C-alpha cells in the first residue's frame, strides 16, 4: 500500500490530531452536551441604585461577556413583580422575568405557591456555605446569595456622646421626627421585641413587648419609607437615625453623607436575599437563567457583587470590602452573629402579614 504525502493529506492529518487532542483536554460535558439556543437577552429583576450597579458589575456584565447574552435589569419592586409572576404562571404564560432577585421571605411565599423552578443541579452550589440553603423547603427552589443586617444607621453629629447603645436611645425627645423606619416595620420587629422587654423565644406567639415599643416609637413621629427613601432622607438632612439595611447607609456614605452604623445591645435583624427562577420559561431560557445564577455563586462574581453591596456572601474565602472587616454589618464568624437576630423564613412567612398589619395599625393612628 502506498501512501501519498500530499499537502492536503498532511493538513487533514493535522486537523484530526488536533481534534483528538482537544477531545482529551476538554471536559466531556463541554463537548457533547450541546448548549441550548441562546436567547438575545435575559431579564433579571433587581433593586435600583447601588444594588443594581453592584449586580451588573459582579454578575450581569460577566455573564454577557462569557455567553454573549445581554442582561436587562427590571427594576420593578420585588413586591410588585410577585403578583405578576404568580399570575403568569397561573395562566400558563411566559413569566415577565427570567430571574427574580428577591428577599428570602418573599421567595419562600413563591416557593410555597409552587411557582419556582428547582435549581439544585447548579454546579456551584457545591462551594456554598450553609447560608445559601433555604431553610424548611425541599431542594433549592431558590438560593440565598448573601446575608444582611438591619443596622441602626445614624449621623455621628447627632450623637456627640458616641454611637447609640440601645434602640431606646432613639426615644430621646430631640429625635422627634428625625427617625426613619421601613413603612411595614420590617427589620424593626425583632429588636423592638427585645427593647420592649420581651424575649425572642416568644416570637411569634407573644409579641406584646414589640408592639409596646413600637407604640413608644410612634410618639417620636418617625418617617416611614422604602430603601431609596433612607438614602435620600439622610442626604437631605431630614433624619438623624434609621433602622435600615447597611447597604443603604453605605450608599449614603459613598455619596458624601457623614454616616455611621451600629448594632445596639438588643441586637439587629439578620436576613438573606436570594435568586430564583419562575416556572414557565422555555427550556433554553431556563438553562441560561440557571447559568446566570450559577455564575452569581462563583467566587469572582460574589467578590465583585458583594464588594459593591458591602455584604457577606455565601462562598468561603471572600475578602471583606475595604473598611468592613470586623464591622457589625459584615458578620462572618460565629461570634459576629451573637448580637444578630435570625428568625426562620417559615415563621416570617406565616406571620409577616399580621406583623405588618399591627405595625400599620399603630403607625397610622
Amino acid at each position, binding site marked *: 500500500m502506498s501512501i501519498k504525502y500530499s499537502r492536503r493529506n498532511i493538513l487533514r492529518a493535522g486537523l484530526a490530531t488536533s481534534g483528538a487532542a482537544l477531545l482529551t483536554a476538554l471536559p466531556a460535558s463541554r463537548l457533547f452536551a450541546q448548549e441550548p439556543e441562546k436567547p438575545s437577552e435575559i431579564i433579571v429583576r433587581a433593586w435600583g441604585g447601588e444594588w443594581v450597579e453592584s449586580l451588573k458589575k459582579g454578575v450581569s456584565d460577566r455573564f454577557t461577556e462569557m455567553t454573549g447574552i445581554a442582561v436587562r435589569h427590571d427594576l420593578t*419592586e420585588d*413586591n*410588585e413583580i*410577585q*403578583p405578576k409572576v*404568580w399570575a403568569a404562571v397561573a395562566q400558563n404564560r411566559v413569566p415577565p422575568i427570567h430571574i427574580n432577585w428577591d428577599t428570602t421571605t418573599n421567595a419562600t*411565599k*413563591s416557593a*410555597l*405557591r*409552587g411557582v419556582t423552578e428547582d435549581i439544585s443541579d447548579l454546579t456551584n452550589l457545591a462551594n456554598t456555605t450553609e447560608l445559601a440553603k433555604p431553610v424548611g423547603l425541599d431542594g433549592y427552589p431558590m438560593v440565598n446569595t448573601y446575608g444582611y443586617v438591619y443596622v441602626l444607621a445614624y449621623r455621628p453629629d447627632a450623637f456627640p456622646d458616641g454611637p447609640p447603645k440601645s434602640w431606646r436611645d432613639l426615644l430621646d425627645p430631640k429625635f422627634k*421626627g428625625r427617625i426613619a423606619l421601613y*413603612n*411595614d416595620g420590617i427589620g424593626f420587629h425583632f429588636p423592638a421585641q427585645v427593647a420592649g422587654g420581651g424575649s425572642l423565644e416568644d416570637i411569634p406567639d407573644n409579641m406584646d413587648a414589640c408592639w409596646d415599643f413600637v407604640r413608644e416609637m410612634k410618639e417620636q*413621629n*418617625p*418617617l*416611614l*419609607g422604602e430603601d431609596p427613601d433612607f438614602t435620600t432622607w439622610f442626604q*437631605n*438632612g*431630614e433624619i438623624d437615625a434609621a433602622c435600615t439595611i447597611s447597604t443603604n447607609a453605605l450608599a449614603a456614605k459613598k455619596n458624601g453623607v457623614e454616616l455611621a452604623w451600629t448594632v445596639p445591645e438588643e441586637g439587629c435583624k439578620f436576613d438573606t436575599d436570594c435568586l430564583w427562577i419562575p416556572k414557565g420559561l422555555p427550556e433554553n431560557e431556563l438553562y441560561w437563567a440557571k447559568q446566570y445564577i450559577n455564575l452569581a455563586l462563583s467566587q469572582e462574581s460574589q467578590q465583585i457583587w458583594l464588594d459593591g453591596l458591602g455584604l457577606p456572601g455565601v462562598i468561603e474565602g471572600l475578602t471583606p470590602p475595604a473598611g468592613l472587616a470586623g464591622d457589625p454589618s459584615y458578620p462572618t464568624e460565629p461570634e459576629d452573629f451573637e448580637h444578630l437576630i435570625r428568625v426562620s423564613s417559615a415563621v416570617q*412567612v*406565616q406571620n*409577616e*402579614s399580621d406583623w*405588618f*398589619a399591627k405595625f*400599620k*395599625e399603630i*403607625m*397610622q*393612628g
Partner: protein
Amino acid sequence: MPQIPSTDDPQTTFRYPLRWRIMDALNYGLDRFWPARMSPYTGWALIMPALLLVGILVLGLFEMADSSLHTLDRAIFRPSEAYTLENYQAVMESATYGRVVMRSVFAAGLTVFFTLLLALPYAYIMVRTTRSAVRKALLVTLFLPFFIGQVVRAYGLLIILGTNGVANNALGLVGIEPIRLLFNFPAVVFGLVQYMLPFAVLMLAPALTAIPRETETAASSLGANWLQSFRHIVLPMAKPGLIGAGLVVGTLSLTDFAMPAMLGGGSQDFIANAIYDQFFRTADQGLGAALALLLVVLGSVIVGVVIALFGAGTLGMGSKK
C-alpha cells in the same frame, strides 16, 4: 338658464374637485360598511366602544368581588376554595382601616374646599379679563402642570418644602429655624390641592363663561358693589360648575395614591395605599379586593348623595334638576 355640463361633450367636461371625490368615496365606503337600513342602530354603534370599556371595568369588578370572598391560605399562598365574608369582616373590625377611610374622606373634603376656593377666582379672572396677555398667561400657567405627571410634581414639592428646601431657606433669611413642612397630613392636602387646581379651573371656566356679563352689569347698575354682585349673581349661577368641579376633585382625591405615599412620610395612608399594601406587600389579594370594592361603594355613595342634594352640575350635561 345655465347649461348643465355634459360628460359626453369633451369641450365641456367637468372635473369634480379632489375633496368631493374623496367624500364620495368615503360615503360609498360607509354605505357598504353600514348600509342605510342599519341606521336605527347607528346610535348603539357609536356608543359601543364606551360600552365595551365600561363592560371590561364591570367584569373586572365582578372578578374582584369573587376574589374578595376568598381568604389567603398562607400554607400555599393561594386563595382558599371556600367562599367567606371574612375579608369584609377583617376590614370592618380593623381600627387601622377605619382611620384610613376617615382620613381619606376628610382629606378629600378639605381638598375640594381649598381647591374650589382657589380655582373660582382664578377661573373668573381668566374668563372675565379683557386683556388677552393676562388670559394667555393664566392659560399657560394652568396647562403647564398637565405636562408634568403627579409623581414629578410631588417630587418638586419634596425639593421645595424639604428641611433644606427653598421654603425653609427663605424662612432662614428672616431668622426662622427650619421647620418640618413635609411628611404630615397638611402636606398631603397641600399636594392634592396643587395637583387638583387645574382640573377645577378647567371645569369652572365653561360655567363662568355661560354667565352673561350683562347680568353683573345690571346688578352694579342697581347699586350692587363687586363683592355683592359676586356673591349674589356669580356664585349662584356658577353652582353647576362648582358641583361638577367638586365631584371630580373629590373623587380623584379620595382615590389618590401618590400624594399620601410621597408627602405623607408613610403615616398618612389613604385607602388606595392600604389596597396597594394588601395586593403587593402581603400578597393578600382577597383583602385588597374587599378594600377596593369598599372604596368603589364609598365613592359612589358620596357622589350619589351630592347629586341627590345638589344635582350633577356641569356633569349633568344640561339635564334638569
